């Protein structure tokens, strides 16, 4: 511990901390902007967190400057206050200030820090850099007019995936962030996962909103059906002031019903269906000598990565569609038939923690007889926007159930799809039953559980069949497993891969985790939010009466009445897909 003074008051702090972190332990939150997630930014470049410190020449950026014995720090001195304001004013001078048209409004860190520092005047009005708008990719939009060059997105893409799609280009006043050649995300090997969107402090990187499409479908008098993914319930509450990790399943169903959707379904039903198909596929591959290891295919970000980088390994991917695509296909066939509705008049909206799903639903391979399984995908954040604009007071909503006519009932296995290891565990519960004829006791397979990036593995001996499994999330981890397969030295039979580190709970469409905008969360929330969201899902699994996909009565009924056998002819037509190798930097007309 060392002795420092802040505003003339004595404190003892740990050695080695930055002034920003040290001040936080003493009860001060220095207004700052780019400092994020353990250095995931262009460190010290925004100059917003300037303070006076003895022993330093001039003002110092508190996010990078370490404390020293005897240091006297002034945060509130007129000089420091004015300097922080000037820093923000300089950023604003080259910023597109159409805040009322920006979907980030309300959660914009630049606007927040402008408020905090009192940057009111257009003090440095002048020339603006040339800007670029990329709306070509189905999943995300890049608008450099709102970029402050903090570099968080550049760091996140590299840290999570080792991809480095985004980089700084040109120099000086002409600097901007984008994929090489200033290409669209659509023309680069971007997997459209949205991790960059999650860390962008402004509206420079945003999901490609599809709320307008939903409005249009309502106007056209379509049967608009909504379905929500498991991970959404673990995070939606954050948009309405609930602590991170509060499950809000009942309120979410109630809110969606009040938005006018004809049915509100849980994609967990589709998750159970996925397990039936994927589990059967795995058993077939194990017993009939198919390509092993088999790899899950629920995560469209991961599928994109595989198609761009591991075209030779595509036969390893399960041919199963992702749960919401499966459920969409069932709504437009089985469900439509039951109610005698033309599938063309049905408009399926998926509420997802993911932005890559926006891309996935556009794929030709995700259509049945030319009709897309899903018509619009909105993120958890977009759902919150729809709830707000409709005047629904989320906290005052009653807890309601999902619709469960014909379909929609779900098991605990479906719920845990939203976290890394969840699909694996759900599949093992069913595969164990299929091989042994009895349920696994205990129900849980805790070895495969986790909540962060990194590789986990487990080995099971099921009635003499040894199944070695591995789980990875984030492409940096996945690459290790994939290179092993390529080199022919993989020891696994089944691998789960999720695009985002931690799985869907940390998807690119989830609410932003901004320590400085979340006053009621603990300081270390960036380290704990994934675990908290994961717990919300595991707790719902435990509350379910049915815990295994194959015991979901409506799934059994669906196969009896309509689909026949898992992996049967109709199941293949509706629920399975295909993949194709893609070139990263494709030829584009110049």
């Amino acid at each position, binding site marked *: 511990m060392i002795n420092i003074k802040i505003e003339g008051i004595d404190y003892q702090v740990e050695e080695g901390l930055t002034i920003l972190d040290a001040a936080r332990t003493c009860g001060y939150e220095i207004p700052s902007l780019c400092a994020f997630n353990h250095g995931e930014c262009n460190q010290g470049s925004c100059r917003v967190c300037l303070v006076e410190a003895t022993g330093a020449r001039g003002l110092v950026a508190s996010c990078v400057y370490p404390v020293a014995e005897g240091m006297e720090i002034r945060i509130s001195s007129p000089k420091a206050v004015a300097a922080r304001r000037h820093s923000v004013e300089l950023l604003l001078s080259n910023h597109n200030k159409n805040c009322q048209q920006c979907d980030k409004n309300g959660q914009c860190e630049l606007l927040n820090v402008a408020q905090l520092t009192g940057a009111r005047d257009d003090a440095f009005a002048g020339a603006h850099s040339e800007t670029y708008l990329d709306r070509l990719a189905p999943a995300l939009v890049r608008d450099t007019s709102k970029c402050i060059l903090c570099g968080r997105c550049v760091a996140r893409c*590299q840290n999570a995936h080792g*991809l480095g*799609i985004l*980089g700084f*280009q040109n120099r000086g006043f002409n600097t901007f962030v*984008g*994929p*090489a*050649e200033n290409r669209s995300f659509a023309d680069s090997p971007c997997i459209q996962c949205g991790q960059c969107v999650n860390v962008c402090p402004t509206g420079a990187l945003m999901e490609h909103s599809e709320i307008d499409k939903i409005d249009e479908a309502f106007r056209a008098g379509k049967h608009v059906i909504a379905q929500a993914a498991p991970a959404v319930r673990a995070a939606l509450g954050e948009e309405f002031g609930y602590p991170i990790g509060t499950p809000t399943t009942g309120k979410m169903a109630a809110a969606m019903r009040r938005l006018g959707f004809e049915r509100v379904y849980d994609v967990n039903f589709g998750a159970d269906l996925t397990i039936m198909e994927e589990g059967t596929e795995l058993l077939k591959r194990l017993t009939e000598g198919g390509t092993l290891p088999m790899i899950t295919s629920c995560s469209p970000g991961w599928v994109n990565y595989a198609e761009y980088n591991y075209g030779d390994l595509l036969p390893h991917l399960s041919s199963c569609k992702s749960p919401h695509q499966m459920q969409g296909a069932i709504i437009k066939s089985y469900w439509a038939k039951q109610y005698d509705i033309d599938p063309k008049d049905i408009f399926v909206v998926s509420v997802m923690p993911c932005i890559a799903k926006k891309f996935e639903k556009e794929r030709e391979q995700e259509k049945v007889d030319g009709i897309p399984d899903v018509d619009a995908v909105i993120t958890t954040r977009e759902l919150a926007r729809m709830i707000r604009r409709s005047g629904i007071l989320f906290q005052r909503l009653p807890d309601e159930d999902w619709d469960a006519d014909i379909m929609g009932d779900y098991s605990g296995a479906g719920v845990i799809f939203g976290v890394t290891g969840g699909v694996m565990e759900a599949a093992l519960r069913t595969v164990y039953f299929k091989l042994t004829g009895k349920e696994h006791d205990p129900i849980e397979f805790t070895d495969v559980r986790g909540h962060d990036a990194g590789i986990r593995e487990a080995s099971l001996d099921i009635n003499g069949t040894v199944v070695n499994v591995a789980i990875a999330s984030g492409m940096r981890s996945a690459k290790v497993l994939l290179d092993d397969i390529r080199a022919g030295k993989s020891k696994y039979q089944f691998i789960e891969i999720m695009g985002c580190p931690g799985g869907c709970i940390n998807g690119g469409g989830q609410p932003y985790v901004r320590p400085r905008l979340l006053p009621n969360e603990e300081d270390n929330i960036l380290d704990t939010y994934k675990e908290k969201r994961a717990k919300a899902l595991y707790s719902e699994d435990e509350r379910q009466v049915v815990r295994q996909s194959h015991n979901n009565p409506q799934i059994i009924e669906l196969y009896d009445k309509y689909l026949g056998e898992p992996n049967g002819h109709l199941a293949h037509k509706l629920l399975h897909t295909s993949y194709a190798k893609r070139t990263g930097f*494709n030829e584009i007309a110049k």
Partner: protein
Amino acid sequence: MGGLNSAAEAKIREICARYKEENTPLMMILNDIQNEYGYIPLEVQEVVSEETGISVAEIYGVVTFYSFFSLTPKGKYVIGCCLGTACYVKGAQQVIDKFSEELNIKPGETTDDGMFTLDALRCIGACGIAPAVSINGKVYPKMTVAQVREVIAQQYLDYEKKQEKEGVTA
């Protein structure tokens, strides 16, 4: 991408291999490629990325940061007009404008026939003979607007001579 032939690709990989032991090999690799081919297009950057593990976006960032690196092929004759302070006050802007007008290209561009590239340079250290123009390393002192046409014509003559010479030796 299909643009790169196998000989060129092998050469790029060989250049990358030269700096395998270096901690930060990128600048050296790009420098060698720029000298060898005169430009570093995206196809080449992709190969460098494969060899070094550095992302294409980062390589692209370095190539666009330094004006020495070029994304497009340069002309046979690179006309560099110094716009440093001394040259500027001696009328360098008018000189480069005249080159621009005569060649019908903006600074940084290359003529359609691949003959000329026009570059604006910062001080080249020839202030005593301002305004200075450098063409493929040869310096033309105290340039005037009136001399521009003649200087361009000289390059054509020079090129024809070279062609003849090559014709003879061939």
